[in-house]
């Protein structure tokens, strides 16, 4: 399988980037970390905008940097698209000329993506003759994405492309980024500090902390790991479940989602039956009961589970994370006291009570 492998060592006065990453070169790879963890620097190294003193980078067997062999391909000659935090459109050119800037500089034989395709996917037909400064932030960013795509890059790098936009504009652009993956099959490295975006978009995730890779892999695997508390804020801690929409209950306004271990009922989703939907079940929304309750509960989703692993118990911390198996991994946060009361041990049969399912806003329709 095609791989994107990168190894950079770059020292700044106040910060040291020491990254070693190896991910499949397909789909969206999200690089997540708090501000100042080196996400942007890492992306700039991938592009060749920053040159790590000791570094190597290969993309699908193309060596773009290998300092042990003295190889460094400058950005101009790399088949890379870069979408910056700000759109960086050229103010003296109209939208059409901005879009064509990179396209004109791409070898005819390398052009796989056409202007018409980009215009259609990004819905920018009516903007073509306008000047960048007359566009809204969201429109500008769409043009910037289109401009990068039109170089038919082998790799698209996106540095928090939505961070300068308000929530509504974000929701406007997210589906387009989804489409980039499915329509153009360009591997994307997507830097963000917004876990909502990452959970919605990413296939692979790389968690950075203080300039180092703290965890990486397929997003479902990474998010179902225990002991991520130092990497992910508590209100985002929780396993991801890939589901399919199977039924709408009009009477109660509910939608049923099927996943490998059973069914989940969630508030009505305006999506088609059969559509796939990735949901996150936050650890704090899961509680554990040792035997099924003999009384009625208002919680709809009660699933059989077995305890897989018990997270690190810290005397100074009242909570502990438990990894359960419900047909797929699930994380639950309980108190240390409950851990003792329930006498949980790995392999134990329990029930998981899911109080809520975090759903991404509906952007696909």
């Amino acid at each position, binding site marked *: 399988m095609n791989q994107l492998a990168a190894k950079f060592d770059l020292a700044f006065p106040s910060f040291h980037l020491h990254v070693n990453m190896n991910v499949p070169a397909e789909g969206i790879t999200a690089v997540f970390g708090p501000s100042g963890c080196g996400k942007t620097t890492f992306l700039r190294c991938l592009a060749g905008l920053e040159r790590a003193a000791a570094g190597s980078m290969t993309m699908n067997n193309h060596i773009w940097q290998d300092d042990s062999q003295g190889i460094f391909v400058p950005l101009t000659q790399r088949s*890379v698209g870069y979408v910056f935090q700000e759109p960086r459109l050229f*103010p003296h050119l109209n939208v059409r000329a901005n879009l064509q800037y990179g396209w004109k500089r791409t070898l005819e034989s390398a052009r796989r993506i056409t202007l018409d395709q980009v215009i259609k996917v990004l819905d920018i037909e009516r903007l073509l003759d306008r000047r960048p400064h007359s566009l809204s932030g969201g429109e500008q960013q769409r043009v910037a994405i289109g401009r990068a795509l039109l170089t038919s890059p082998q790799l698209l790098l996106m540095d928090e492309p939505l961070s300068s936009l308000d929530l509504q504009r974000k929701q406007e652009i997210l589906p387009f980024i989804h489409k980039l993956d499915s329509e153009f099959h360009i591997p994307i490295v997507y830097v963000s500090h917004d876990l909502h975006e990452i959970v919605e978009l990413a296939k692979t995730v790389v968690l950075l902390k203080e300039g180092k890779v703290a965890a990486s892999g397929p997003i479902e695997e990474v998010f179902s790991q225990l002991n991520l508390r130092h990497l992910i804020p508590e209100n985002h801690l929780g396993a991801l479940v890939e589901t399919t929409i199977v039924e709408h209950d009009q009477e109660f306004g509910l939608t049923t989602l099927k996943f490998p271990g059973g069914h989940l009922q969630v508030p009505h989703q305006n999506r088609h039956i059969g559509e796939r939907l990735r949901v996150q079940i936050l650890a704090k929304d899961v509680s554990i009961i040792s035997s099924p309750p003999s009384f009625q509960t208002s919680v709809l989703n009660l699933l059989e589970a077995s305890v897989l692993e018990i997270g690190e118990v810290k005397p100074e911390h009242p909570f502990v994370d438990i990894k359960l198996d419900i047909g797929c991994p699930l994380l639950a946060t309980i108190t240390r006291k409950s851990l003792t009361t329930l006498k949980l041990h790995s392999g134990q049969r329990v029930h998981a009570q899911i109080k809520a399912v975090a759903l991404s806003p509906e952007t696909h329709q």
Partner: protein
Amino acid sequence: MIDLDLGPLWLTLQLAGATVIVLLLVGTPIAWWLAFTSSRLRTIVEAIVALPIVLPPTVLGFYLLIALGPHGLIGGIWKDFTGSALSFTFTGLVIASTFYSLPFVVQPLHGAFEAVGRKPLEAAWALGASKLDTFFTVASPMAIRGYLTAIVLGFAHTLGEFGVVLMVGGNIPGQTKVLSIAIYDHVETLEYAQAHTLSAGLLIFSFLVLLAVYTANRRLPLQVT
């Protein structure tokens, strides 16, 4: 009808035009380097470039006279290659004017390139443009107002020079006798009518050029922020 020799006017325009062209060629790389370097030499170069603003033209003229002379640093090399000296020639005047007007071209360009910044350049590189390509298709169009200001100031400042020209060029009709010196000559010989005509002509011409440029500048569609 006043007996008026228009030679100095023509010579002045030629000098200012040639100087501006040389200044753009010399000043652009200097301004670019100043705008984007992180070298410690930057402040020193900035100060040297700004020197002609504060120095009396006679000081500058004095050193240029020595440098351009047949035994001087520039003049000596020139003489080795061409066989003639530089002082009291038109070419010598262009070189002297280039030094004299350098800050008036470098400073607006420096400011304009700084306003463009690295960001659009990086965007262009990522789109496959080489550095030179980026300079001509992104940086220069974005810095167009800086160029206009540089051209006007460089041209106007060369039109108005007197001290340096007098020191370096002398007063050779058709070679180095430019307008400002012709006016001085007329006044010295009490030919006030001729002095009036040339002075008023220079005044009106300068005003019209500035007016045209500021109008064009205002109408430029480009908004670089």
